[in-house]
């Protein structure tokens, strides 16, 4: 169990440098013709031929859909112009509509709260569990495997199960609360609780991912450091804050970034549990975008795409922050 994990962690940085190498490969050809002057053209062709499948794939499945989404958000689409394809270009009008919408403020708030709270608890619980399982007691592997269950279940299953458990009248959570003398809580149907409920469900789903990545990060910290710290008289708490936590920083950064991107776009759980309601109290950008584009008999494609693009931009911004931080770390 241990060894594959070790390899796994070691391959992570490798995988990254390989993808960075992909960028370098495009830049590589120029010096190549200089060296191999005899057959520059054929080498160039071969290089392009090898590049073609990936480029084609990227263009067809990433660049074009993204372009279409931007295009959708910049035109005034009605159902008629969607079909006939003559929607007038309206610039940033759709974005204005979205910003002026009374849903915008609350949705932004909910998205920020949902993302930060989920991210904090997922990371904290995931890290605590990872440190706990790192001690390798008996059955730790089995228990760790059990903790992965939320990750393996299809989202529709876990979200439906949560909404049954949190049902106001027949849910198990309220019946447990009842036995300890607490009155029923309208988890999904009260505007004060709906956001909390979807956050709880999402934390439960996100913990295993954090656990796995952080656990494999822990494996790469040399045991000798802990021994040295113990010899210096550091207690468990001190060892965690002075050895584990700082050495885990690169892994933590990527975990948090990936977690952020996953959490920003969480849609299924919220939609299945509350449909963003009641009264918009658990609407995030992701559910709002869907609501605009598909949740109505008369789809509003333009504003829906605009909200979706705002999400893409937010995720991209955090991605750039991550890259910057990483470069700084590599330089220092």
């Amino acid at each position, binding site marked *: 169990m241990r060894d594959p994990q070790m390899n796994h962690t070691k391959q992570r940085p490798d995988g990254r440098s390989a993808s960075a190498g992909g960028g370098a490969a495009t830049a590589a050809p120029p010096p190549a013709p200089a060296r191999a002057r005899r057959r520059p053209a054929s080498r160039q062709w071969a290089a392009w031929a090898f590049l073609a499948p990936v480029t084609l794939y990227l263009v067809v499945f990433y660049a074009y859909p993204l372009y279409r989404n931007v295009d959708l958000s910049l035109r005034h689409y009605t159902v008629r112009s969607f079909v006939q*394809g003559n929607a007038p270009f309206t610039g940033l009008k759709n974005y204005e509509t979205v910003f002026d919408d009374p849903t915008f403020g609350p949705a932004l708030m909910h998205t920020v709260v949902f993302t930060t709270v989920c991210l904090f608890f997922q990371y904290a619980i995931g890290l605590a569990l990872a440190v706990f399982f790192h001690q390798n007691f008996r059955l730790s592997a089995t228990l760790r495997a059990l903790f992965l269950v939320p990750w393996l279940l299809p989202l529709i299953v876990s979200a439906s199960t949560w909404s049954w458990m949190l049902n106001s*009248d027949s849910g198990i959570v309220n019946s447990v609360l009842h036995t300890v003398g607490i009155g029923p809580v309208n988890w999904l149907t009260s505007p004060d609780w709906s956001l909390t409920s979807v956050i709880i469900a999402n934390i439960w789903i996100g913990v295993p991912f954090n656990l796995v990545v952080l656990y494999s990060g822990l494996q790469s910290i040399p045991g000798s450091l802990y021994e040295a710290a113990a010899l210096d008289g550091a207690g468990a708490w001190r060892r965690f804050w002075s050895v584990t936590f700082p050495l885990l920083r690169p892994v933590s950064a990527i975990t948090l970034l990936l977690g952020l991107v996953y959490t920003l776009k969480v849609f299924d759980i919220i939609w299945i549990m509350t449909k963003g309601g009641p009264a918009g109290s658990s609407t995030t950008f992701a559910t709002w975008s869907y609501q605009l584009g598909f949740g109505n008999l008369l789809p509003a494609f333009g504003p829906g795409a605009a909200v979706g693009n705002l999400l893409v931009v937010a995720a991209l911004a955090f991605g750039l922050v991550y890259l910057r931080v990483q470069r700084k770390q590599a330089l220092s």
Partner: protein
Amino acid sequence: MHRSSRRRLVAAIALSTVTAVAGTACSSGSGTTDTKGAGGGAYTIWDPYPQFDKTSAWAKLLDECGSKAGVKIKRTAFDTSDLTNKTLLAAQQDNAPDVLIVDNPVVSTLAEAGVLTTTDDNKLDTSEVDPNLLAAGQSGGKTYGTPIGANTLALYYNKAVLKAAGVDVASVKDWQSLTSALEKVKSAGKKGITFSAIGTEEGSFQFLPWFWGSGAKLTELDSAQGESALALWTDWLKKGYAPNSVINNTQTTSWQEFASGDYAFAENGTWQLANADKAGFDYGVLPIPASAGGNASAPTGGEFVTLPVQGDPGRYTTSQKLVTCLTSTENLNATDTALSYVAPTADVQNKQVAAKAGLKPWVDAVKAAKGRTSEDLGTKYPKISEQMWKAVQSALSGVESPKDALAKAQSAAQ
């Protein structure tokens, strides 16, 4: 190093093979659409009945109508919520199906998009259809299809629960008597009524009988009548006559609550009849009462058979034959029985009631029902409906009073 470069080569080859295979798959896909475009060949039918597989009577009926018209049928079943966008996309690619069976409030949206042909163009005969049902498929004086069947909402009641609470169901005639019946049921220790007030079209569908039953109009959500309808629901929730879970209930989960046997009433549709027989308790069906007595208009549910616009107008003749076959008296009877729907023509309705007397209250309810997009609301309806379900959710969850919620909805729906 050597090994890794070889690995990369293998990966590149593998990737290009995948792309090549995907490429062929795509081109063979477009090949079939080409044959379709050339006239003749297979006729495509899209329907929202994924519950019927290839061996079902419905699929066989389609094939039979196809062979009568001398063409092959290619049928695809979609989830009903998927069908609108799938159709819009297909129409955008000039690839719409020859025959489309679609939920009735969507017809006006698709018509607005220019996706559907009118009965003037496609020569469908709709003279036998009940006018109140046909109205859901009409906008701007044109008709865009013919209903394959209709359903609507009524109140199911559990006879045992009502008896135990000492309620005579004949006394339930208006909102006041219904509310006092619920009060009796609650004090007898049972649960009152369940319905679906979820934040989707389903929620609006379920609220409409009460909204219309109050005398309110969809063009004026914040009228005093509309407010009284929403106040009725809100009070039921406050007093515990209806469970709090209705805010999140779909019609299916609401039915499950009723099927548990604890509830006196459930607002649900014709399509639950088959399940009601399986529920294991004695039930009855009651039209939804209007505010001051009499029956409220419930909204019509059910699908329309439509003929989407084709690049080759020559195809309409055959498509029209297909639809005429599907909606012939004999076939309508079979189809609507299978779907647990009420037929759209008086002729078939009589046959249905003769075969199953329990359908009588449903036939009456369908006759009194109103299309959601009728009265020339057309594509205005979806906007109004969205604001209406939002108002219902706000009021039931206590965010706003019914009055404020509806006032906000009215100004947003403009």
